């Protein structure tokens, strides 16, 4: 098909034809077209189906307010549903598909809903589909769900790149129409940092669509001249294709730039960039959006906003119809007739609702054919251009919950003084000032106000000469006395009747109306429908519009890709990764890694021939307990604590005493939250009178540091104690097993004596290794074996693990991961994250005796509450299967509940649960730690460990949590 509706004029580039397909059929447009303008130029009327009744729909508007012409654009994983044809720029080879129709746009079986419309009134679904009860999920709902929805997701990962950015400016100007350009010009010339953002791909706003003169030249020429001047200013940033979508606290604005959607060849550039703009002031110059009038069948393809009809003619050289009826209640809409005539269209009727008494009906189903008046007169038409007046685009003034103000003279809401926070100004049509002259003037004034507010001087500016015809409107919302339904929200299929029915049923508050009918909740966010719907409700209730109220819009101004909000934080890069200095070495050893918060830790080190992780872990445990194993423990939080009051400070942080810890020694410590529950545990080493190093668990490093700073700065601000994290400074390895010392002695420089006598259990010290490398040595054990932790500056971490493995060869030293670490700590009965889960107390963890009596510490007072000391509370104990067979049937399940023998599996009978389980190669049995009601008194009893999810039920014996070496003799050799 040729471009049957293309006429002269417009700002398209006729030297660059562009081929595209719509529903598989080829069409041609020009560079500078939108999908909508190209379809119009090709005479295409039917472009979509409505949400509920699947009524045929055509292009309605020429901007981001479009409710009907939603398309799926692109193919495969790049298919983007619900894209507005009215703002999608045409590119070569573009594929465009209509939506919400089956099997085809022209023949949609769901259009049967339209015939059923009388039964599908507002809220009908709340009144039916209830019988029988089970049919909702099985029958009714799937049908409703299939029928609803608009476009479809591809189901494929979004393949494009996205990024974010952060910009700072003095003045953010939102909208580059006549008002916004003037504001930017005044502010830019005064030297302010200005950002001028516009959602369109061309600057100029409404000026691009009207044949007006500014300073005696075309509006386009003026726009180009101003844009050129702004582009030349280093302090002004012009951002096209950029929507300011939201206003947030303290001068933060959200914006999104569409970088590549208009390109035929996708580069590696991010598809969209999400901006956070920090602006000292902003000027809203976002223009206005035309609205419709409720006429019967006013949703037929070919019924359009008058301003859109002008846009297509003037900006794109495309005629929306060859025989057009113009319907308007205001002076602006009536201008459409002359413009169309100049473009070569026939204007078959002009209906000024202020003069005409005759009601009329719109004829035609998949396209407008005619209008028929109540007196029987019929006028042929293929397009109805309607203007029901203009709504200033005030949405951004509502994002901070500001309420707009109704102005009778223009029959529209404008931003109220209250809604505009001190740093936001408004100019032009967004302020209800509709003539070009007014827009230019208000834009310049807003610019001058911004300059002044920021303490600079604005140079006087010659205001350009432009049209200043007054805007005259007589509200006319709904044509009464017609037969068919009159659409208010075309996308959500809300009619004037629906609004009245909702009111009749008691949904008279505008918020209730919105929720009951879904008015204004379509993808245009009510731009096409809200004010009209409100006016019809007001009329029906015989109230004024201000009495009836209004809903206030929420961000975003227009829908924004979820990917844009996510930016580059995707896939593996969703969150940062922390790696220890031995990471690459471990990878080379074939280690399997596990996430521990942001850290990656080696979980186990499989060797050839090992087919199950359990084999590997068993081997690592046995090797460590029989000779020596090495584990990277760098991830533990390490905090350097210095100052004369450091000891006293730690004394208040931990439940046990620290002030008198001798230099050169470590101590285990337990800290509580102020509510008396266990917060974290770790060790503290004392290097001098005024210097301690604390370790925290990997998981709590950040929260413990924050807590310590809170105590230091807020509770005891005069304590002389300083904190700094040294987690990343030191690469630290646990060396555990009977041969740990022998191995260690091979790398410790000989002036340092690490014998049992010189460096006993819980000793710490500064030493050197491998010929003068500084190191910190701690004699600590998590495994229960003779063990050390050795720290070196992180740069040597990779080299140290290799050295340890190399000198350890004669002892058959093994590296072990978090899994073997976990097995050994369970064998040893140490509480870890599954036990220190924030719900347990020192007493219930078996550490009640550590709570110092004589000193105060964080959590002390509230730890004494009744609920934290209940004798029938859950106490940490150990569990072993009664039958010790090493079979899966005796595998204990962490998370299993403990239920007495012969008792039924109900909550009343649950006496606790297993928190951590492991297979102990040392005991050749599964073992578990868990919490049992009065557990400390029940050693030796038998109870069932029941996991209903995995269907296991294992009889276990309650035992001490210390499965191995309960007296701790191995630690001290």
């Amino acid at each position, binding site marked *: 098909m040729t471009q049957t509706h293309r006429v002269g004029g417009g700002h398209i580039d006729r030297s660059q034809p562009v081929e595209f397909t719509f529903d598989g059929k080829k069409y041609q447009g020009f560079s500078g077209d939108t999908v909508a303008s190209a379809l119009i130029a090709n005479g295409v009327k039917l472009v979509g189906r409505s949400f509920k009744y699947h009524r045929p729909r055509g292009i309605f508007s020429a901007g981001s307010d479009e409710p009907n012409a939603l398309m799926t654009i692109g193919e495969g994983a790049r298919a983007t549903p619900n894209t507005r044809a009215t703002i999608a720029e045409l590119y070569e080879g573009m594929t465009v598909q209509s939506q919400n129709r089956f099997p085809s746009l022209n023949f949609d079986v769901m259009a049967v809903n339209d015939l059923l419309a009388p039964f599908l009134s507002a809220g009908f679904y*709340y009144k039916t589909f209830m019988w029988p009860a089970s049919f909702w999920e099985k029958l009714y709902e799937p049908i409703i*769900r299939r029928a609803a*929805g608009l476009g479809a997701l591809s189901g494929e990962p979004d393949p494009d790149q996205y990024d974010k950015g952060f910009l700072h400016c003095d003045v953010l100007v939102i909208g580059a129409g006549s008002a916004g350009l003037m504001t930017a010009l005044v502010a830019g010339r005064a030297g302010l940092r200005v950002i001028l953002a516009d959602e369109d791909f061309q600057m100029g706003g409404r000026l691009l669509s009207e044949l007006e003169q500014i300073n005696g030249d075309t509006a386009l020429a003026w726009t180009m001249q101003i844009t050129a001047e702004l582009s030349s200013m280093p302090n002004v940033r012009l951002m096209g294709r950029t929507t300011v979508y939201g206003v947030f606290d303290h001068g933060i604005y959200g914006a999104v730039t569409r970088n590549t959607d208009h390109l035929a060849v996708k580069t590696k550039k991010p598809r969209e960039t999400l901006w956070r703009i920090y602006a000292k002031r902003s000027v809203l110059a976002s223009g206005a959006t035309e609205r419709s009038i409720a006429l019967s069948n006013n949703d037929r393809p070919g019924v359009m906003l008058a301003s859109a009809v002008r846009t297509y003619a003037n900006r794109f050289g495309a005629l929306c119809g060859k025989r057009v009826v113009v319907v308007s209640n205001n002076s602006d809409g009536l201008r459409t007739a002359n413009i169309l005539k100049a473009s070569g269209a026939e204007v078959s009727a002009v209906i000024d609702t202020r003069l005409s008494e005759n009601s009329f009906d719109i004829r035609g189903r998949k396209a407008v054919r005619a209008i028929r008046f109540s007196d029987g007169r019929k006028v042929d038409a293929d397009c109805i251009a309607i203007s029901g007046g203009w709504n200033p685009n005030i949405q951004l003034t509502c994002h901070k919950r500001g309420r707009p103000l109704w102005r009778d003279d223009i029959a529209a809401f404008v931003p109220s003084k209250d809604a505009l926070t001190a740093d936001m100004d408004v100019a032009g049509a967004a302020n209800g000032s509709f003539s070009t002259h007014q827009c230019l003037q208000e834009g310049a004034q807003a610019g001058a106000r911004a300059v002044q507010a920021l303490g600079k001087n604005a140079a006087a500016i010659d205001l350009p000469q432009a049209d200043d015809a007054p805007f005259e409107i007589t509200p006319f919302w709904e044509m009464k006395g017609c037969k068919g339904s009159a659409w208010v929200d075309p996308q959500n299929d809300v009619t004037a009747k629906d609004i009245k029915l909702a009111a009749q049923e008691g949904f008279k508050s505008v918020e209730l109306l919105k929720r*009951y009918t879904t008015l204004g909740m379509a993808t245009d966010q009510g731009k096409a429908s809200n004010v009209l719907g409100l006016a019809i409700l007001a009329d029906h209730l015989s109230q004024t519009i201000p009495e009836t109220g209004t809903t206030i819009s929420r961000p975003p101004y227009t829908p924004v*890709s979820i990917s844009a909000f996510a930016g580059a934080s995707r896939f593996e890069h969703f969150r940062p990764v922390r790696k220890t200095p031995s990471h690459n070495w471990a990878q080379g050893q074939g280690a399997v890694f596990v*996430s521990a918060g942001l850290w990656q830790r080696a979980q186990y080190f499989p060797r050839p021939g090992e087919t199950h992780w359990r084999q590997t872990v068993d081997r690592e445990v046995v090797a460590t307990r029989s000779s020596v194993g090495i584990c990277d423990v760098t991830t533990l939080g390490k905090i350097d604590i210095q100052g004369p009051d450091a000891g006293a400070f730690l004394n208040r942080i931990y439940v046990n005493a620290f002030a008198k810890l001798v230099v050169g020694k470590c101590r285990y410590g337990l800290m509580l939250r*102020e509510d008396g529950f266990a917060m974290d545990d770790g060790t503290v080493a004392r290097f001098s009178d005024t210097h301690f190093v604390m370790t925290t668990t990997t998981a709590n490093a950040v929260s413990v540091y924050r807590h310590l700073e809170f105590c230091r700065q807020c509770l005891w601000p005069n304590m002389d104690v300083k904190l700094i994290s040294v987690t990343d400074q030191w690469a630290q390895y646990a060396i555990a097993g009977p041969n740990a010392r022998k191995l260690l002695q091979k790398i410790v420089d000989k002036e340092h004596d690490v014998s049992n006598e010189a460096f006993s259990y819980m000793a710490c010290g500064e030493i050197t290794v491998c010929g003068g490398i500084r190191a910190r040595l701690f004699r600590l054990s998590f495994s229960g074996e003779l063990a050390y932790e050795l720290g070196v500056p992180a740069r040597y971490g990779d080299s140290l693990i290799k050295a340890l493995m190399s000198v350890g060869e004669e002892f058959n030293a093994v590296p072990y991961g978090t899994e073997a670490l976990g097995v050994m700590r369970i064998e040893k009965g140490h509480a870890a994250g599954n036990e220190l889960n924030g719900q347990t107390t020192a007493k219930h963890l078996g550490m009640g005796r550590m709570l110092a009596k004589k000193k105060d510490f964080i959590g002390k007072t509230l730890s004494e509450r009744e609920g934290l000391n209940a004798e029938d509370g859950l106490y940490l104990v150990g569990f072993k299967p009664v039958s010790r067979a090493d079979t899966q049937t005796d595998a204990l399940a*962490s998370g299993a509940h403990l239920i007495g023998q012969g008792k039924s599996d109900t*909550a009343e009978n649950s006496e606790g649960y297993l928190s951590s389980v492991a297979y102990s190669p040392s005991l050749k049995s599964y073992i578990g730690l868990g919490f049992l009601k009065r557990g400390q008194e029940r050693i030796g009893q038998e109870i069932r460990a029941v996991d209903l999810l995995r269907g296991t039920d294992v009889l276990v014996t309650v035992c001490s949590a210390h499965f191995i070496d309960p007296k701790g003799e191995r630690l001290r050799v």
Partner: protein
Amino acid sequence: MRHSAFQIFKQALRGHAGWKPIWRSPDPKPHYDYIIVGGGGHGLATAYYLAKKYQGVNIAVLEKNWLGCGNVARNTTIIRSNYLLDGNEPFYEHSMKLWEGLEQELNYNAMISQRGIINLFHTDPQRDASVRRGNAMCLNGADAVLLSQEELRKKCPFLNFDNARFPILGGLWQPRAGTARHDAVAWGYARGADQHGVDIIQNCEVTGFLISGGICTGVETTRGQIRAKKIGVAVAGSSSRVMAKAGMRLPIESHVLQAFVSEGLKPIIPGVITFGAGHFYVSQSNKGGLVFGGDIDGYNTYAQRGNLPVVEDVCEGGVALMPMIGRARLLRMWGGCVDMSMDGSPIIDKTHIEGLYFNGGWCYGGFKATPASGVAFAHLLATNTPHGTAKAYRFDRFSRGFLIDEKGVGAQPNLH
């Protein structure tokens, strides 16, 4: 008027002229047996169950704004009973059972849709915690299924299994969980309460309590004094402000929870999916919009709007979990004011003032509790004793140390 397909047919033939307001708009009487302050989900449910079970009593619901304008109008519609602790699970399972019969009970289709909820886990300790929770659910008569990675792949092939920062190990699935049409819940209870004679009085703000000698005998309102034998307050989002009028401080902070909906899309997400590691959860509404959210913003606010860091955080989680949703567009974001209690669990209790009762501190989870909260609060008001499922929801649990802290984060509301 009874709702049915036949009724719709009949009314349609008459041009729908016969539908009446689904609740009356009476003027307040000077005296009631019970006043419920707050015409949201919980207040209306309380009035409904009170009126239904204890017939012949005079009840008024006072709403300062329009009916159902609070959190019942702005939540993400999820219903579930997948709690861990003894104090919570029986209550929420009771609620779940009430949801299952609600439409027939109310003769109003609130679109209870039991398409299930899946809570994903990513590490062994998270799986252990899920197992413990799932067992607690089963022991309380709820349903729970542990899904392996393979099973999950079949149910939700669109999740990112292959190049995720936090690989998915499996999920805890509650098949009976799902969603409900939130506004319809308020309207259904309002209609039901109205039919049982409850006066629902909108645009009537409580400005003070009539208290003397430690006894509350009524309320001051913008529409005059109204007296009652018992007054129950259920005003989520305004609890501290309202109870301050009775001189009470509460173990509650008010925060904003943001929620999001995308443009309509053809059905693709089967039920509710929760991604704890990424602070993201999502379902798909019957209109096709992806309804999703994440963490609260984290600062005290009554503003019913949040800020960008959480918006971005939630979307990052969403795209990380299901990269296909990236090309869908976020249509609308909004915020609800949630009353975060100090242990993350609610309060349904008498106050120290005789005749004054309190229901609140629902954190971000009040919607799913609506039916059980109504039953329990009605029971408490009528009998002065806690309902069997709500025995733990007492004020004194904080001073006595019987906390119901599902997350184990202590007395810091923004972490719950």
